[in-house]
């Protein structure tokens, strides 16, 4: 039975190096699942909001700005963007780690992915708050 354990897939060299998982796997997994579940109601709200905002009543920037200024819309829109970016950052990182073998390329892509998500989140949330708090220009 010992032959069936996962340990048999490790080579003697890998055992000697002692380099295994960095023990961050569980937290990545939980972040991915929890953000995914949080996105279910946020997605449904996003569809509803998208349908409203694309309607004839919201053709002007002023109308959309006053919609965003309603506190529940401000909060939900900011949450939608941030939770979506947290979820997608993790999802794309998994794809990078799955398919890119070369250490340098992999690291550059993982960091670039992080930067893109953080910048998009910061710019988006600041813009949402600016419009919500100061109104249309």
């Amino acid at each position, binding site marked *: 039975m010992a032959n069936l354990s996962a340990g048999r897939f490790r080579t003697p060299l890998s055992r000697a190096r002692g380099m295994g998982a960095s023990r961050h796997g569980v937290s990545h997994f939980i972040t991915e699942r929890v953000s995914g579940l949080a996105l279910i109601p946020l997605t449904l709200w996003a569809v509803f909001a998208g349908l409203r905002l694309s309607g004839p009543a919201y053709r002007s920037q002023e109308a959309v700005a006053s919609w965003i200024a309603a506190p529940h819309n401000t909060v939900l829109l900011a949450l939608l963007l941030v939770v*979506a970016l947290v979820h997608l950052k993790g999802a794309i990182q998994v794809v990078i780690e799955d398919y890119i073998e070369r250490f340098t390329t992999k690291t550059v892509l993982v960091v670039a992915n992080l930067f893109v998500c953080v910048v998009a989140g910061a710019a988006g949330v600041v813009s949402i708050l600016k419009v919500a708090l100061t109104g249309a220009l």
Partner: protein
Amino acid sequence: MTESSGGLPERPLSPHLQVWRWHVTMACSILHRGCIFALYFGALLLAGWAVSLASGSECYGWYIGLLGSPLGKLVLFGLTFALLFNLAYTVRQSFWDLGLGFSLKTADMTGAAAIAFAAVGAIVIWAIAAQTGALS
């Protein structure tokens, strides 16, 4: 392969597109990954929309014109599908986390249901949009 593994038992290879027979569960898995890339772009579009809104009515008008163009509408329709498919996939995956839904028949059925939900849902949402005058 056994040459380099020095007498160890054969190690499993991860499956890839070329070596898998097409069936609904693997199509779902690949579609899920594809949708993630689409939604990544979609999240950037959403952030860009907020930035354009904060940059004045001229900038917002230009951005909305871009989204409302035929190509923009096509992209948004694709994103509607991706959004709904990933929503269904998250539900499916949550049942897997509970240890449920792994039998071949169930996995095939839930996979097909996720694709159908996303396709029908996207069409319904865009039909509603057309009804409310959003597309004109």
